[in-house]
Each structure stands twice: as C-alpha cells, then as structure tokens.
C-alpha cells in the first residue's frame, strides 16, 4: 500500500533563510508519528508548509499525499482532501462564530466529495457530542472563533474542529504547549478518538509527556531542517533523559 504521506528531500526557505534542508518522512494510514527537536529546527515550518501557508519557498523535493502532489494544491483544497493543521497559536477571529466556521468547513469538504450539505440538526447533535469529549461548554459555539479563549481553550477548540472534520491526516503543531495536566488529558483523549486504520496523525511537540497519553508508532528528531534520527517511543523517553545533544553529535559524526 502506498504511503498516505511521503516527503522526499524537502527543502524550504523563508526569505533567504533555509529552514528545511532535505527532509524525508513517510507516514502510513493508521500511524501516529511524533516529531521532536530543538527550538528552531524547522518543526513548525514543516507543519505550515504541509498545510500550504504562504511565505515559504519550496526550493527542492516533493510531498505526495494520497498519491497526489500536495504542493500543487491550494490550502483550502488540501483541507478538503482531508489534511488538517492544528495550529500552535490559533488566531482569534471576532465576528465569525465558531459554529458557523465548523459548519462551513464541514460543508466545504462534503461539497468537495459530492455530498449534500449536512443536515442542521444532525450537525448540532454531532458537534455537541464532540464538545462533550473536549469538555467544552456549549456557549463556545456562539462565540467568535477563539475570541477571548484562554490558551487551553484555543487548543481544545482546535481538536474539536479536528474531531468534527475527521481528517485523514492531522498535523498537530505543539497542541500540548500551554496545557495543564487536566487539559492535556482532555486534548489527548480527543486525539486518540481520531486514531483509526484509515487516518494518520503527526504530532509536533517539545515534550515527551504528550506521548504518555498519545502513544506514537514512530518518533523522529528534526534538527537543522532534516530528520536526523527515527525510532519508536523509547526514543522519546531517551530524549527526555538525555536531551538532544547526543543525537546531534551522532548525526554530525
């Protein structure tokens, strides 16, 4: 079976700064991958490049998603094809309410698949069920997107959107940052609900503690714009104990 996501020799720059310098990664449906690495190693850039954020120049390499050239697709097309980015810093959009965005996003994907718009009642039932999972009050629905949300509420809202949209590939960019222990459990629980043989999840994180709750199939260390080491979850535990220096030294050797 072909990989759901296959990144080959990806080079990306912001202005004159080279951020990704030959990154390779293969993710199969059904897998959870964790990408760790020191600050400035290119983790967030990778997530943004995959989601299609403007401002990055792809200078070399390829990204194949579900057999298609991902880099040819506009951000909204990637989303409709089942790619989801959970933002590290979700933006506040006062005046656009949460439930409207959820529904518009869901209908955009349905339209793309030739399905009719979601029934209003079924939609609300679905959203309320997912909100229970995320332990969010229903009053969040009528508020502006992320407007006045605490950091933790914003992260829950990202996962709520993910659960409603049911992406085939979820990229979660430091979804665990800024969460207290309880919120971390809620968010992890939400992410685990999405795990299935058809879907894949890529977690970008600094901290091993997330991986206690969401157990990854593979762990990668991203440094200097490329993946320098891969392993199973034990690698994350070792990084927690020993830091990144030894990985970087071995990679340089």
């Amino acid at each position, binding site marked *: 079976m072909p990989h759901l996501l296959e990144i080959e020799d990806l080079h990306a720059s912001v202005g004159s700064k080279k951020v990704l310098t030959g990154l390779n990664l293969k993710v199969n449906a059904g897998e959870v991958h964790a990408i760790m690495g020191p600050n400035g190693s290119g983790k967030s850039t990778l997530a943004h490049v995959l989601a299609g954020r403007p401002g990055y120049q792809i200078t070399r390499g390829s990204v194949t998603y579900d057999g298609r050239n991902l880099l040819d697709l506009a951000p909204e097309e*990637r989303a409709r094809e089942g790619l989801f980015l959970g933002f590290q810093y979700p933006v506040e*959009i006062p*005046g656009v309410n949460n439930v409207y965005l959820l529904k518009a996003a869901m209908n955009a994907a349905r339209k793309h698949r030739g399905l009719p718009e979601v029934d209003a009642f079924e939609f609300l039932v679905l959203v309320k069920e997912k909100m229970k999972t995320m332990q969010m009050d229903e009053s969040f629905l009528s508020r502006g997107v992320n407007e006045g949300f605490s950091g933790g509420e914003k992260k829950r809202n990202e996962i709520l959107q993910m659960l409603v949209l049911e992406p085939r590939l979820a990229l979660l960019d430091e979804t665990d940052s800024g969460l207290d222990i309880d919120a971390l459990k809620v968010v992890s629980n939400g992410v685990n609900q999405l795990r299935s043989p058809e879907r894949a999840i890529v977690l970008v994180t600094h901290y091993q503690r997330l991986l206690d709750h969401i157990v990854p199939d593979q762990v990668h260390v991203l440094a200097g714009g490329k993946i320098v080491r891969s392993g199973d979850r034990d690698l994350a535990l070792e990084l927690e104990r020993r830091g990144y220096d030894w990985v970087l030294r071995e990679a340089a050797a």
Partner: protein
Amino acid sequence: MSIPIAEKLSREHAALAAALPVRVVSGARRRAAIDELLARGLPTGRDENWRYANLRALERSSFAPAAPAAASDTAAWSTLLPAPVAGFTRLLVIDGILTSDAGAPSALPAGLELHSARASDSQPATGTPTATPTPADAAINADADERFALLNEAFALDEITLRTVAGVATVPALEFVFVSSGAGAVYPRLRLEVVPGTSLRLLERHVGGSAGALTNGVMAVRLAPDAQLDHYRLQSQGVEATWIDTLDVAVARGADYRLHQYAVGARSARSTLRIRLAEPTARVTLHAASIAEHTQVQDTYARIEHAAVQTRSVENFRAIATGRGRVAFNGHVVVRPGAAGSDSKQSLRSLIDGADAEVDARPQLEIYTDDVQCSHGATAGKLDETMLFYLLSRGLSRETAQSLLKWAFLEDTVAHIADAGLRATIEALLAAHLKDPTIAAGRRE
C-alpha cells in the same frame, strides 16, 4: 458653481415656480433659497468638505422634481420595497411625497403625530387622537455649509412632520421607506421632534430604481430634554443613483441620540450629519458602516458639536472599499468653549481590498476647552493574512473566507442592536454586498 449648473438651476426653478406647493415651502422662501444658491454656488470637489464626494451628476441631472404622478404609479416602485421588519409600522415616501393613505391615523402606532404639508387642508394625522398638534417650529435651518438643504428647500414637494406624544407607555417603532422611483430629482424633507421624556425607534430606508435618480434629502431632528431616539438609516439606492443627504440634529439636556447608519447603495452618496449636543449631559452614539464597490463613492461628513458641559459622543465607523470604490469619513468633533467635562470617542477603521480601492478616514478635532476627554483612533489595512489562512486551512474557499472576514469587520457596527429582526435586516443588507448572503444567517446559529 459652474455657469451651466447655475443657469440650469435658475431656469428650471423659474419654469416650475408657479407649480411648486406653497403649503410646503412658500414661494418667497423658495426664491430666497435659489438666490442664495446662485450667490454661493453648490459645493464642488474643490471645497474642502466635499473633496471626496462625487458631484458630477449635478452637471447632467435636472433639478426639477420628479412628477408627483409617479406616486400613484405603484408599478413603478412597488418592486423596490424591501421586506418589512416585524414591529415597525411602515410609511411610504414616494419621490419625496408621503403617500396619502399611509398618513391615515389608523396606520400610525400610538404615541406619534404625523403631518404632511402637501396633503390638502388635512389635519395632522395622529396616533393619539386626544393630543393637540403644536405648530411646526421654525423652518428647517440651512446651515452655512448646507447648500444642498437650500436646494431641497427650493424644490421640495412635501414636508413631513413627525412628533412623539408624551404619556404613551410603549415605544413606537416607525419605518419610512423613501423611494426614488425613476430618473427625476427627488427631495425628501422630514422634520422630527421627540418631545420631553419620550422615546422613538425610527427606521429609514432609502431605495431606488436603476434609472439613476438624484435624491437630495433633508432631515431635521430635535430631541427635547430626556428624549431618546434610536435612528436606523439604511441607504441602498440603485447602482446609478446619486444620493445626497443632510441630517441636522439638536440634542437637549439628558437626551440620548443613537444613530445607526449603513450605506451600501448608489453610485455616489454623500451624507452630511450635523449633530449638536446643545445642552448639558446630551449624548450621541454613532455606529456607521459604508461599503464601496466597483466605482461607488460613499462619503460621510459627521460634525458633532459639544456645546454644553458633560456632553458625550461616541463614533464607531467601519469602511470597506473594493474594486475602484472609495469611502470617505470625516469625523469632525468640535468642543465649544465652556463645554467642560465633554467626552468624545472616535474609532474609524477601514479595510481596503484592491490596489485601486481607496478609503479616506479622518478624525478631526477642534477643542476649545481644557477639561475634556477626547480620544480617536483611525486604522486602515488589508485583510489579515493570518486569519485568512486559518479559514482556508479549514477548507473554506478564498472568496468565502474573504467575505467572512469583511463581515466580521463590519459586525462591530451591528452587534449592539438588540432587536433581532432589525439586526437581521441590516446584516442581510451588508452581507449581500460582501458577495456571500449566507454569512449573516450563519452567524446567528
């Protein structure tokens, strides 16, 4: 004033003078208005306060008012009427004339008196039969730079007087639909008096056909002590229309004037707002939004005068310009000597979408008293790229995402409206001009 315009004005007035109703404005006053206009000229783009307005239509339009017969030709305008708003009693003003049956006492909500100067020897209609109408106050005052008010005075075919009546428990809600049915000039003329301690909700809608009428309206509002007025004005004239508006408001002690003004229509629109906080503790709040698309011009000049102590004004203005559209807003605040303790806030924010679009938003403060609180902020920018990407990353089309962000930007001028039906009407009007009429509906789910 250019010689052709002056000649046209003089000629057209002379030809019509005998036919213009003296009951509305006396022949002498009409003549005086024309003389003053000929002496001073109509505003042009060279006048500082008019530099953003598009007054080119004055060169080609006739000043002679549309024939009164148009009012009875319902086919000419009935399709232009917008859907009613629940709770608001509707009155029609067709080509500047209050339609006859609309003024019947039965049509009015309790707490209001209405009078049409044109209607033949009729008594003022009243929703409260026991009330005694007071005589109309002095003529609508043409301020030093309100020359379009003079033009209105010279040609008006009707003058509508509306007055609240004290002692009514409910707050009356009234809607005027001002229709410019054809290509002729239209001169709506309305005088409103909110008597002491009373409240009114007044909705004005300005609509018109595609023929490109020149509409030049004048409205004078007096809020007596402790009166309250919620004044909603929705301008959605036809795409070829020229719409010129002069609103003159005086607010007395303890009175509260809340103006909510939305401009999306006409080829060229200019609204001149003069609001005088004449007595201590008078207040005004102005929420306004303008959208200019294609080659539209939406120009607003708002002059708020703090003429007494402890007066307060708040202005919240939002502008969106796309295509070759242009929005101008001049928020001119004057604090008179002795108006100590005045408080004035202005927030002017603009969104410019496109290389040829233009917004000129200008706070202008003239302060002659030390003890005042005046703040103002003006920002202009493009759509926020971070927000846009967030919406795209959720699968929304670029067009929908842009409409949604524009909507969110304007929403600030609408969100405060408590009446859900009215708010929905205004939201739908704005949303229709953001290329996606569904966005307003979605907001309320």
